[in-house]
C-alpha cells in the first residue's frame, strides 16, 4: 500500500519534471558490469522489507557488517605493504619492524620461487630476487627468520603454486625453534585457481593443484588450528580487467571449489571456514556499487555457508574482506590525482564495512614507491579514520534506497553468474574450458575501448590532460650480483647436504603423488620430510611435476 503510494507519487513527480528527467535519462548510466543506475531511488526500489532482508550488524546474514559495533570498537586494519631483497636483507627488515612493535609485512617472493624454479634454472635467469625474495630452501627460510620467534609472530606469505612447500618450511622451522604448533599464526595466499585465470603463476594442472590446496587445508585443520591457510583473491580479477560482478562471482566460485574439496576429504566446515578470507579490490569507480558489493558479499557468503555447507558457528559464516585499491586504475598522467582516487577507494571500503584496507601509492606507476608517497598512502587512511566521522556509525548507508537496491541487484547478478558456472560443471571446468579467461578478457576489452573512445573518463588521460614530464623514477633494477649469490648458495647447499636423504624424500613425494588424492596420501608429510632434508623448492616442485605434469593454458579469446 505504502509502496503503491510512493510509486504513484514518483510517476507524478516524473510528469511534473518531464523534460528535465527525459534529458538526463537520454544517456543511460550504468556500472561497468551493466547494472543500471537509476536517476532516483525511492523506497519502492529498495526491497519492500529491508530489515527482513539485511537484519542487524553482527548477526546473520551480516549484510550490515560482521561486528555489532562496526568500527567504533575496532577500526579496520591499516595495511602495510613492502618489498625487499635477499633473505638476509629481509631478516633485517623483519626484525626492525618487530622491534618497532609492528608485524612483518606480507612476504613477497620472486617469480622463480613462485613458479617452483631454483635460482640456477635457465628460465630463472634475470628474474632472481626481482619481484620479491628468492627462497630456494629451508636454509633461506632459516636466514629470514633468524632471531624471530615464530610462536609469537604472524607470518603472511604471498605464495600459491608451491604454497605447500612454504607451509612445510614454516612447520619445520617452528619445530626446530621448539614452538607449539597449535600456536603458530600466519597465512598463505594459496589461491591457485585465480592463478590460472588472472595472476598467471601456475605450475601444475588444475586438479592436482586443487589437491595441494586441500592437503594444506586438511593439514592445518589437524595440526595448525591458529594458522590461516587460504586467502581467496577476488582482487586479481579486476586487475586483469574483470568487472565487479565477475570479481565476486569468480572469487566465490573459487572458494566454494576449495570448500567442496575439503569437505569431500572429511574436514568439517567449522574447523577451517574461519581461516578462509577474501582479498578483494576496493575501488573509487562506481563507488556506490563498491559499497553494495561488500554488503552483498557478506550476505551471499553467510547464506551459502549456513544453508549449503551446514556451518553452525556464526564466526564461520562471516565473510572477512581485506581490500587494496587497484593499481590498474592509477595513472602516470597527473599522478597526484592518484591520491584522490585512493582516498575515495578507502571511503568505499569503509562504507562497505571491510576488515583491512591497503592503498596504492601515487607514484608506484613509475617504479618503487618513495618513502614520502608510502607515508601519504598510510596517512590518507588515518584521515579517513580519524577526521571524517565515518567509523562512528555502523553501515551508514544501510537503508539508503539506492544502496539497498544496488546491494540486492548485485547479489542477484552474482548468484546468476555462480549458477552459470555450476551449469558448466563447476569452476574447474569453467577454467579449463577457457570461459573465465574469456569473460575477463572481454570485460577488459570493453573497458579499454571505452577509455580509448573517451566514453569512460580517466581524468588526466582522456580528459583534462596536462602534458608534463614524468618524474625521475627508481626502477625495479635487476641485480646480477644478487642472482649470482643465490645461484652460488643453492649450488653450495646441494654439495653440503645429505643427498641420499634428499633423493629418498623426493622419491616418497613422487610415490605419494601417484596415489589418488585422499587423507592417507596427503602430500604435506612427505613434503615436510623433503624440506627437512634441505631439498630445494625447485626439486620438490620438480618431483610433483614428474607426476602431475604442467598446466597448459587455453589461449583463445
Amino acid at each position, binding site marked *: 500500500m505504502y509502496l503503491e503510494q510512493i510509486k504513484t507519487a514518483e510517476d507524478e513527480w516524473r510528469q511534473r519534471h518531464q523534460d528535465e528527467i527525459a534529458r538526463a535519462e537520454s544517456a543511460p548510466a550504468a556500472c561497468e558490469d551493466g547494472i543500471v543506475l537509476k536517476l532516483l531511488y525511492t523506497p519502492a526500489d529498495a526491497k519492500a522489507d529491508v530489515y527482513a532482508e539485511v537484519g542487524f550488524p553482527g548477526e546473520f546474514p551480516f549484510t550490515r557488517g560482521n561486528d555489532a559495533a562496526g568500527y567504533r570498537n575496532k577500526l579496520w586494519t591499516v595495511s602495510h605493504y613492502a618489498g625487499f631483497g635477499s633473505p638476509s636483507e629481509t631478516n633485517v627488515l623483519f626484525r626492525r619492524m618487530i622491534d618497532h612493535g609492528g608485524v612483518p609485512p606480507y612476504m613477497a617472493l620472486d*617469480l*622463480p620461487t*613462485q*613458479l617452483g*624454479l631454483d635460482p640456477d634454472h*635457465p*628460465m*630463472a*635467469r*634475470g*628474474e632472481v630476487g*626481482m*619481484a620479491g625474495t628468492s627462497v630456494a630452501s629451508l636454509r633461506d627460510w632459516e636466514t629470514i627468520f633468524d632471531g624471530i620467534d615464530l610462536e609469537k609472530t604472524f607470518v603472511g606469505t604471498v605464495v600459491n603454486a608451491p604454497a605447500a612447500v612454504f607451509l612445510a618450511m614454516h612447520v619445520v622451522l617452528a619445530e626446530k625453534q621448539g614452538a607449539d604448533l597449535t600456536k603458530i599464526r600466519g597465512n598463505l595466499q594459496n589461491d591457485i585457481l585465480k*592463478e590460472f585465470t588472472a*595472476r*598467471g*603463476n601456475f605450475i601444475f594442472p588444475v586438479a592436482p593443484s586443487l589437491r595441494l590446496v586441500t592437503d594444506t587445508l586438511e593439514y592445518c585443520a589437524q595440526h595448525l588450528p591458529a594458522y590461516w591457510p587460504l586467502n581467496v583473491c577476488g582482487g586479481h580479477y579486476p*586487475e*586483469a*580487467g574483470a568487472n565487479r560482478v565477475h570479481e565476486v562471482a569468480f572469487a566465490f566460485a573459487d572458494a566454494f571449489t576449495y570448500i567442496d574439496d575439503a569437505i569431500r576429504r572429511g574436514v568439517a566446515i567449522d574447523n577451517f571456514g574461519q581461516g578462509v578470507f577474501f582479498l578483494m579490490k576496493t575501488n573509487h569507480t562506481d563507488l556506490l556499487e563498491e559499497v553494495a558489493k561488500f554488503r552483498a558479499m557478506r550476505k551471499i557468503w553467510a547464506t551459502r555457508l549456513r544453508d549449503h555447507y551446514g556451518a553452525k558457528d556464526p564466526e564461520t559464516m562471516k565473510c572477512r574482506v581485506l581490500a587494496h585499491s587497484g593499481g*590498474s586504475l592509477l595513472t*602516470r598522467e597527473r599522478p597526484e590525482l592518484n591520491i584522490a582516487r585512493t582516498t575515495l577507494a578507502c571511503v568505499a571500503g569503509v562504507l562497505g564495512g571491510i576488515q583491512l584496507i591497503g592503498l596504492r601509492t601515487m607514484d608506484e606507476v*613509475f*617504479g618503487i614507491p618513495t618513502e614520502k608517497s608510502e607515508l601519504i598512502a598510510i596517512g590518507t587512511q588515518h584521515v579517513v579514520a580519524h577526521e571524517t566521522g565515518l567509523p562512528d556509525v555502523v553501515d551508514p548507508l544501510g537503508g539508503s534506497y539506492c544502496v539497498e537496491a544496488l546491494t540486492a541487484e548485485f547479489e542477484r547478478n552474482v548468484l546468476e553468474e555462480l549458477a552459470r558456472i555450476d551449469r558448466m560443471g563447476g569452476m574447474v571446468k569453467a577454467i579449463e574450458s577457457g570461459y573465465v579467461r574469456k569473460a575477463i*578478457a572481454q570485460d*577488459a*576489452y570493453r573497458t*579499454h*575501448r571505452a577509455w*580509448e573512445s573517451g566514453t569512460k573518463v580517466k581524468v588526466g*588521460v582522456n580528459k583534462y590532460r596536462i602534458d608534463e614530464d*614524468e618524474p625521475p*623514477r627508481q*626502477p*625495479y*633494477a*635487476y641485480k646480477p650480483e644478487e642472482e649470482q649469490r643465490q645461484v652460488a648458495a643453492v649450488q653450495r647447499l646441494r654439495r653440503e647436504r645429505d643427498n641420499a636423504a634428499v633423493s629418498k624424500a623426493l622419491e616418497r613425494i613422487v610415490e605419494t603423488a601417484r596415489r589418488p588424492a585422499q587423507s592417507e596420501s596427503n602430500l604435506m608429510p612427505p613434503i615436510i620430510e623433503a624440506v627437512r632434508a634441505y631439498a630445494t623448492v625447485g626439486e620438490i616442485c620438480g618431483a610433483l611435476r614428474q607426476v602431475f605434469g604442467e598446466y*597448459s*593454458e587455453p*589461449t*583463445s*579469446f
Partner: protein
Amino acid sequence: MSTAQRRIRVLMGKPGLCGHDRGIVLVVMALRDAGMEVIYSGRHNSPESLVEVAIQEDVDVLGVSILAGGHLGLCERLAKLLRERNAQDIVLLAGGFIPPEDIPKLKAFGVREVFRDGAKLEDIVQFIEQVAGERAAA
C-alpha cells in the same frame, strides 16, 4: 597467391616468468578485430621457444609483453636469437611496463618499436599494418 593478399601474421607472446597478460590479451583481440592472424603463446615462454614458433609459423611480427622488469635481458636474447636464425626480418615489438630510459636500449638490441602501457590499441594496429606492408614489399 601473391604476398600482398596474405593476411598479416603475428605471434604475440610472454617471454620469461611474468604472468601479467591483461595488456597483451587486449592487443591480441585488437589485432584479430583488425583482420590479422594472431597466435598467442600464453605465458612462461623461453625466448628460444618464441623464436622457434615465430619461424615455424612464418610470422611477420613477433610482439612480446613484459611487466615484471626483465625486458632488457629478454629482448636482447630474442633479438640475438632472431639474428642467429637468420630471421631478423621478423619485426620484433615490445610492450609492457617499460621505463622511457630503456626504450633506446631496446631499440639498439633490435626491437623495432616499444609500446608502453597506456599505448593506444589503434596505434599498435596501424604500426603493425605499416611494417607488415613494408616487409611484404621488400
